[in-house]
């Protein structure tokens, strides 16, 4: 491992000062960054530990439920406000990683975690995300875990998070701080598609940090479900995951929210399927139709063609659970 400096500033201003220089990296739980440093994939000169900042609170606010960037994944998944208002988020969190990892992983770190693409992790392999211009190793390689939506010739990696899939479905907003002050962006616009610049996972600029996320109040609590399909029952990334939330009133779907994990460079909202379901009855037939609609722009590679079948099946299954049919 390359030599690096480590600091733990006591204030937000000091953190923002420290991360202004490229080469500095925030460290929160370290469960992703330290691995990447050991592998030589990321080699920051300076680690800026943000654990002294007061960013670990969960509280109700006029905007809904506020969650600080340093709240641990384990704490968040058991929080009574979350269980009560947004059980979908709790389910997604518990489907991620392992209890040991969730005890270290933070909300901000989870959002910022990098892809698990094997070509990104192996510095001897081509990867445009790790080393722009070297090519995409996964495109013609072992791409079983890779994207079926929104990929580019430069990159077919997926964002690995479960938590983010739920937050995308729940329409959260992200609060970001930089030297120029704070800004808020919708969660669905935080992560980006690879396009010409797969080295950029999201729209956080150099020198900025995440302060937290806010989830607006909703009527989904009774009818939401997170379904993660994976190669083993725990401690495995999603082949495909679906966050489904329904606002069911009088036997009619007033509003539906659907997002998928394991299929794109960002948590993938299924806007067409959501629109289709609005105003419909929660029937198996409607759920299947919505699932088919969601697949319109899907495209598979050599080893992930199964996702074209697995994804709609998982959407329909998650909807059945959310709608009380399973």
């Amino acid at each position, binding site marked *: 491992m*390359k030599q690096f400096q480590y600091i733990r500033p006591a204030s937000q201003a000091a953190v923002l000062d420290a991360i202004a220089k490229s080469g500095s990296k925030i460290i929160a739980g370290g469960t992703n960054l330290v691995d990447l440093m050991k592998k*030589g994939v990321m080699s920051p000169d300076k680690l800026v530990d943000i654990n002294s900042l007061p960013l670990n609170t969960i509280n109700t606010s006029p905007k809904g439920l506020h969650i600080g960037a340093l709240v641990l994944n384990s704490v968040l998944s058991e929080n009574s406000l979350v269980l009560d208002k947004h059980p979908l988020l709790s389910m997604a969190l518990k489907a991620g990683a392992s209890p040991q990892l969730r005890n270290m992983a933070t909300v901000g770190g989870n959002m910022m975690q990098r892809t698990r693409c094997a070509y990104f992790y192996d510095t001897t*392999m081509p990867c445009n995300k790790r080393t722009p211009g070297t090519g995409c190793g996964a495109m013609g390689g072992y791409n079983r875990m890779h994207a079926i939506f929104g990929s580019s010739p430069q990159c077919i990696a997926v964002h690995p998070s479960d938590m983010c899939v739920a937050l995308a479905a729940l329409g959260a907003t992200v609060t970001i701080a930089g030297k120029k002050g704070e800004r808020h962006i919708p969660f669905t616009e935080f992560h980006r598609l690879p396009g010409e610049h797969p080295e950029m996972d999201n729209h956080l600029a150099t020198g900025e940090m995440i302060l937290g996320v806010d989830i607006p109040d909703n009527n989904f609590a009774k009818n939401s479900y997170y379904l993660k*399909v994976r*190669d083993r*029952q*725990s401690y495995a990334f999603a082949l495909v995951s679906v966050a489904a939330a329904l606002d069911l009133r009088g036997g009619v779907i007033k509003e539906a929210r659907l997002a998928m994990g394991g299929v794109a460079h960002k948590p993938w909202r299924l806007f067409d399927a959501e629109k289709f379901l609005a105003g419909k009855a929660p029937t198996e037939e409607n759920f299947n139709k919505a699932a088919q609609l969601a697949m319109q722009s899907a495209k598979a590679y050599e080893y992930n063609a199964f996702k074209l079948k*697995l994804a709609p099946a998982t959407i329909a*299954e998650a909807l059945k659970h959310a709608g009380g049919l399973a």
Partner: protein
Amino acid sequence: MNKPIPTSADGMSRVDGRAKVTGAAKYSAEYNQPNMAYAVLVGSTITKGTVATIDTKAASAAPGVLAVLTYLNSPKVPGHIPTKAQKPSSKSGPLKVFYDNKILYNGHPIAMVVADTFERAQYGASLVKATYNKEAHDTQPPKNITQGVGAWGGKDFTKGTVDAWKTAPIKLEQEYTHPSDVHNPMELHAIIARWDTPDKLTVWDKTQGTQATRDDIAKAFKLKKEDVQVNSQFVGGAFGSALQVWPHEVAAILGAQVVKRPVKLVLSRPDMFTSVGYRPYTWQKIGIGATTDGKLVGITHEAVGQTSSFEDFAEGPINTSKGLYASPNITTRYKLLSLDVNTPTWMRGPGEATGAFALESAMDELSYALKMDPIDLRMKNYAKTDPDNGKEYSSKFLDEAYAMGAAQIGWENRQAQPRAASQNGWLVGYGMAGGMFGAYRDVAVIKAMMKADGTLTIQSAVSDIGPGTGTAMVLIAANKMGIDAGKIKFEMGDSSLPDAPMQGGSATVSAVGSAVHDACTVLKEKFQQLMGNGGTDKPDYVKILKDNNLPSLEVLTKSAPGPDNQKYSMQSWSVHFVKVLVHPATGVVKIDKVACVADCGKIISPKTARSQVVGGAIGGIGMALMEEGIIDHRYGRYVNNNFADYHVPVNADIPQIDAMFVNKPDPYINPIGAKGMAEIALIGMAPAVANAVYNATGKRVRDLPITPDKLI
């Protein structure tokens, strides 16, 4: 739905259990020596060719770096590690580390950095830069695999008529494959090498055989056996990966020679995929035929197993078909396929676990073709003598095992028709499969010493890779001597102790346990002689020593197999029953219930025996559902060489596993009546899962692992 595995079982707990869970047990990498240095290997990033240039300047100049070894400057190993190939081969044999500039597989060690700390060695290793002359490589088994394989895998075998299955009224022929599975014990392979003098060496090494390792190192470095001391006090799992001396062990010894300090080398998890063997990718084809009432007419079992371009590794995938059923006609063919990969090795249930997947899947397919219960089909073809050689069995109670397992799993709930049962939206399926493995006994020597305070010390060079060897030995001695187990100490894992075979082939209790039995028998007789009048059956050892003015009394006893071990066919048997739930939409498989029955003679230590079976079953579940070493064949390089991507079962995957034993002593194998059980705990588990998945879904998966994508 997943019930926890019960934590209690009958019998004595592990003698070293407390040390293991409290961290007091010391593993090879933990024997830090004064002035010790640390070594890190650099692997090739190409798969085949030669090193053109290797730049070690930056690495050598890095802080703390003591030496950088490459083929250009490394001292040569005078003898090299002897080959394990079972027949003379034109191949060059085990990898000679830092020997020449040839690259034989991706990850081939090209350099080793030795530094004063591990971190500095690692950083130094990242600075070694090589250029290569690349040659085209081949790491992928071809589609038409039987073409182009000519290498030796053992003689073709025929009993009766060749390929007689083809003449049967009910018949089928199918191909089965499983990928390379990597042992991946939790403990990384590790060695500390210390030269005590220029021709005297001590190592602390992860090994399944302290004396085999001693002998191989002595041969390689042209040292006297007695000048090589191998210690392996605790081993954190091995499953066969520590049955031989590997290049990293030789490299660490070379490093210690160069820097003139003790050197520690611990493989990284990615290194584990390319350094210490694996269960080889194997293609198999079974042709099987029966009469309409289910009597087997013939079995033909063909197999092609992957090996490396430089060493022939052969095992026994076809043995299962020679011996599991009473078929009048049996044909087997086995070949090796050479690829540009590291050499495979034995992995728990070597050969037979592979073979059982094919044969027991085919038997299941045949049972559906015959519309016959799979157990009835097996009973109809129950072998009463060994079909391979006609010998009588020393003991066989597999029929009882079938009955016990069927009762435990609730076999009567199985639907004969596939995809006919469901439960809460999940498809339900039941499957069963069995396995066999030769029951062996080797020569072993035990020293047993009774001290004045009434404590007994037993010594053997044997390693304990986790089954609870020490516990079994203490129980055997306690039983024989009639003293409390708490008064007995078993010393092991040290090559200077009395001779013991490697811990492999499920033969440790049979060999070393028999020697403990024999040594204690002799020791007890000595006490009885001292008492005079023929003694009593319960000698008061403390009093006898005191009366005779003796500080202690000891024996050194050699124990060896007799003519019965040749006369009879000796096998251990197992059968696994599995209930699975499969989600019809997502293809997710949940193992709901497992019942395993072992017919392996007398059970010496019930608690550790149970753990052994549970562990084997879990290994089999991994083999069935998730284990797969994946190479990107364009680069010849692993793309899942870590525990996030190479999946082994986790707690959530494992339901209650009921481990049961027929527990009838074998009258001939050895004086304690115990046969091996480690291999059979895994053999047959993967096909039992696959058969249950078929029963649940109507989908026959013939290419392991059975991941959700194969079921949708």
